[in-house]
């Protein structure tokens, strides 16, 4: 799995996989691999949420006003 996914991307993909699974029209083997991927994504999402810490940057008005 791509470890650079944002939460939004990973969650969107997870939701997609769950919907695919719920359609229930995939062969067993494919369903199992969809399930594996969904479990990986949900673990990844949970890990992102658990480890997240707000980052703070400061932008000065000068950068803009100098050019104005």
């Amino acid at each position, binding site marked *: 799995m791509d470890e650079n996914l944002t939460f*939004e991307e990973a969650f969107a993909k997870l939701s997609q996989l769950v919907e695919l*699974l719920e359609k*229930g029209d995939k062969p067993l083997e494919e369903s199992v691999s969809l399930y594996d991927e969904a479990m990986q994504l949900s673990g990844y999402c949970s890990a992102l949420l658990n480890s997240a810490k707000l980052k703070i940057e400061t932008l000065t008005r000068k950068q*803009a006003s100098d050019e104005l």
Partner: protein
Amino acid sequence: MITTSALTVTQINTYIKSLIEGDIRLRHITVVGEISNFTRHFRSGHLYLSLKDESCSLKCVMFAQTASRLRFQPENGMRVYVSGRLSVYDRDGVYQLIADAMEPVGAGAMAAALEQLRQKLAAEGLFDADRKKQLPAFPKRIGVVTSASGAAVRDIENVLSRRYPLATMVLCPAAVQGADCAPQNVQALEALARYGDVDVILLGRGGGSQEDLWGYNDERLVRAVAACPIPIVTGIGHEIDTSLCDLAADFRAPTPSAAAELATPDIRDLAQAVDQAAARAYQEIFSIHGVACEALQNLDARLASLSPMRVLSVRMETLDRMRAQLISAGRIAMERRTTALAHMGVRLKNADPTALLKQGKLTVLFGKEKLKSASQVKVGDQLQILLADGRLDCTVDAVQQR
């Protein structure tokens, strides 16, 4: 001295109070004057002040509930209009104005100017609902325009840390009151839009007097908010304050904290959504697996019923059964015949024509001897048959040997 007609202090104060409060002209008055001796009672929140002009002074009180609705901070020296009714505080023998409204002199003009500007900008469509931009569901970088040292920036930081720590907060500081407020906020919006790489902007400050918040009604800032390509959520002052910036913004929150909440999903809801998705996936694979297992069992059962061994064993069984039937049928038939044979034997015995002879009941004489065999005689021989009651003399007509 006529002591017999002396009144008590209570009597006179009560009488004066009834006079003043009974005067309909003193029930709804507006007084203009300058504030002095201003105090806010630290526990009750009531406001006490005197209104004065060049020569006179009038005591005023505004009760806490009314005071909480004030849109500005009264100060000593401020010229104000105070409306209310005149009453007497009997304990001190003092009459005072019980205020139910107060506004600074000049506020009416300011309000009129504000309303004019609002109408002008509204006519230009700056506040139109169809101009409002959608907020991103998962903002990655959140711009914040407020004072770097105010309470608002700490409130916003706390809310973002708690609700949505996945984001990056990009603070672009600006003055939140005074003459610098509007131009610095405009610059900050432009800086964030150009260099901030943000997908939503929170703009605002904590509560203050109407004068403090005045910069957020500045036409330049209101236009900059409306023109900003990035969605803006305002949180300016408290619930009761509405600035023109609030009207121009894409979303308006009552406070800076509320603006931060409005702009972000709650990480707890997200965690729950992730868990639910995982649970749904599990549920689904569980049921898919269960269906497959059941189908497999059905197939197994069908297969077993179709296998050659099964067919053979069914036939063997049939054969066994048939054999058993055969054996049992044979035995029954045999038994029946044996019985029948026995009966026949008895009947045969009974029917034996020689039986009488054997029993000696009938005696045939040939000459002087008892006839014992057919072979002893020939045609024409004379035989005598002795019966119980007589004798028959017979001639042999024919001899048939057995």
